[in-house]
């Protein structure tokens, strides 16, 4: 399989008045053609920032300070702002967490979808016809009527669908989905996820899915990276990650969620809070919360080691974790 996106040592910092918050601290991963790659982690671990960095949407006072983002052989970080607009939309599309605020409230849905057609030769009615077609693809019926409506007349799920229609118009090859279902209720969430899966095949896209919901990951992703405090802790394919996780954080996550068929035992939350990223620890960032920690963890950051093909973990004591079980039995 070919790599469509290669993120190498990405570093994104936010420069405050008195301190620098290191939100993303050297993140590397690849996305292959046609796969869904999941980026999971708790709030503030840098997953959304990573996602936005790919499209260079980091706002002041944030800045991408290092690394490279190689899309189809070109480093996006070296492009001028003008060249970058060529990549946004046409090559890489993105859908947002809040469909309520991702649509412009003063333009009709039709105007917003039609605007996304960059082909200057299309007439207004051509664009409208196509927009109706796209609305149908994302599952909004009676598109002709819907085109004339404003975002506030749409429900949350419908807005997310409309947003997707606008993104799909330019047929991107890579779709970044930044927590696309977090603000939707569960039934709509399910529909939107199925829609993403269907569209992925229909438009032969790759998807980067950012989420904190392990259930969503299980349903959607081929491979997953677990992020913690701006670093990737573990990368594995979905079965390995749930079957034989090899990082204390992933193991902790697996134990902290209820699952079907579990005996009525208590859940085990991960105690403590993530470290302050304006002053990240020298050693392993997970060390204060880790139940396997030893002295070395405080002093040295472990490397991301390959355990078996495609399974990487960042821990000093991989052998200690060998008997840990995940959520599913392999």
């Amino acid at each position, binding site marked *: 399989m070919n790599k469509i996106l290669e993120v190498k040592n990405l570093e994104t910092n936010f420069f405050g008045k008195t301190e620098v918050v290191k939100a993303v601290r050297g993140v590397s991963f690849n996305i292959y053609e046609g796969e869904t790659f999941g980026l999971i982690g708790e709030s503030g671990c840098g997953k959304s920032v990573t996602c936005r960095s790919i*499209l260079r*949407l980091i*706002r*002041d006072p944030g800045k991408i300070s290092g690394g490279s983002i190689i899309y189809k052989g070109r480093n996006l970080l070296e492009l001028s702002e003008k060249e970058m*607009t*060529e*990549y*946004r*939309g*046409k090559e890489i*599309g*993105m859908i*947002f967490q*809040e469909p309520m*605020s*991702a*649509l*412009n*409230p*003063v*333009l009709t849905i039709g105007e917003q979808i039609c*605007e*996304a057609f*960059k082909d200057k030769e299309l007439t207004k009615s051509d664009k409208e016809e196509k927009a109706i077609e796209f609305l149908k693809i994302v599952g909004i019926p009676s598109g002709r*009527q819907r085109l004339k409506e404003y975002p*506030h007349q749409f429900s949350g799920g419908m807005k997310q669908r409309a*947003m997707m229609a*606008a*993104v799909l118009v*330019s047929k991107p090859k890579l779709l970044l989905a930044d927590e696309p279902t977090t603000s939707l209720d569960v039934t709509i969430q399910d529909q939107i996820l199925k829609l993403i899966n269907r569209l992925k095949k229909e438009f032969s896209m790759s998807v980067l899915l950012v989420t904190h919901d392990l259930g969503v990951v299980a349903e959607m992703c081929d491979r997953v990276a677990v992020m913690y405090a701006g670093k990737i802790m573990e990368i594995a394919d979905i079965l390995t990650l749930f079957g034989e996780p090899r990082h204390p954080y992933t193991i902790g996550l697996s134990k902290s969620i209820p699952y079907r068929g579990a005996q009525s035992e208590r859940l085990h939350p991960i105690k403590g809070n993530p470290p302050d990223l304006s002053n990240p620890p020298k050693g392993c960032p997970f060390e204060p919360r880790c139940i396997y920690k030893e002295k070395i963890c405080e002093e040295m950051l472990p490397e991301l080691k390959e355990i078996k093909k495609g399974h990487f973990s960042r821990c000093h004591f991989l052998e200690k974790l060998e008997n840990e079980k995940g959520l599913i039995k392999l």
Partner: protein
Amino acid sequence: MNKDGLNNKKKVSLFKRSMSINIGLILVLIMLVPAIFPQFISTHSYTEVSFEEMLQPPSSEHLFGTDNYGRDIFSRVVWSTRIDLTIGVLATIVPFITGCLLGLIAGYYGGWIDDTLMRILDIFMALPFMVLVIAIVAILGPGVRNLYIAIWIVGWKYYARLVRSEVLLIKNSEFIQAAKVLGYSNSRILLRHVLPNTLSSSIVFAASDVVMCMLTGASLSFLGLGVQPPIPEWGSIISDGRAFISSAWWVTVFPGIALIILGSGFSLIGDGLSDILRTKGR
């Protein structure tokens, strides 16, 4: 379908809600008639002096009476409508456009552009509107053209500040990010996505600003700095009648009433607009 029923309901409530707009529109429309066709409505020439008919009270011959030169007040009030309305509208629109564009640029690009524009704006903000207008007109010399220039120089600041503050909010909103993601150019995002979202408060302000500009025009004419005689203007008619207010009330009262009607008309439109736009924004 019940869809249509919904739409009908909406139209009714919109009509109800904008009652003040309707009244305002009626008042303004009434005043538009003499502004457009003064020659058909006025009964006398507005410059015709007649010393036999000095300071006559309202009668069938002179509907609003005459002034100290025997000029027909009704005709003078009718002819003034055009110039006062023009001052009100034109002196609002030009600063409106200037201010909105400057505010848009300052808010969106930020940095030194923002700093420079806002410091200049602070200088204008520090001085009272009227004082500055009078000072500028005094420097440039009295006259309608200089009145426009003065209001333009002083008036843009409100719009710039209003639009800028809205832009600061809007530019960080998700849908501007989304527009960027779709690969739109900066100018397109600015004009099509940011601007329409920032205009509502400025439009409301503009509707009441028309009144302000009209009053400014009338005040300056009252002081002899605006419209120059013999061209009639409400402010200057009131100024002329000031000396005889105890013996000939009609000279000051009728142009005053005209000013009130047009002023309230625009104020009501402004109120109604702000109501509608506020609820629409939600």
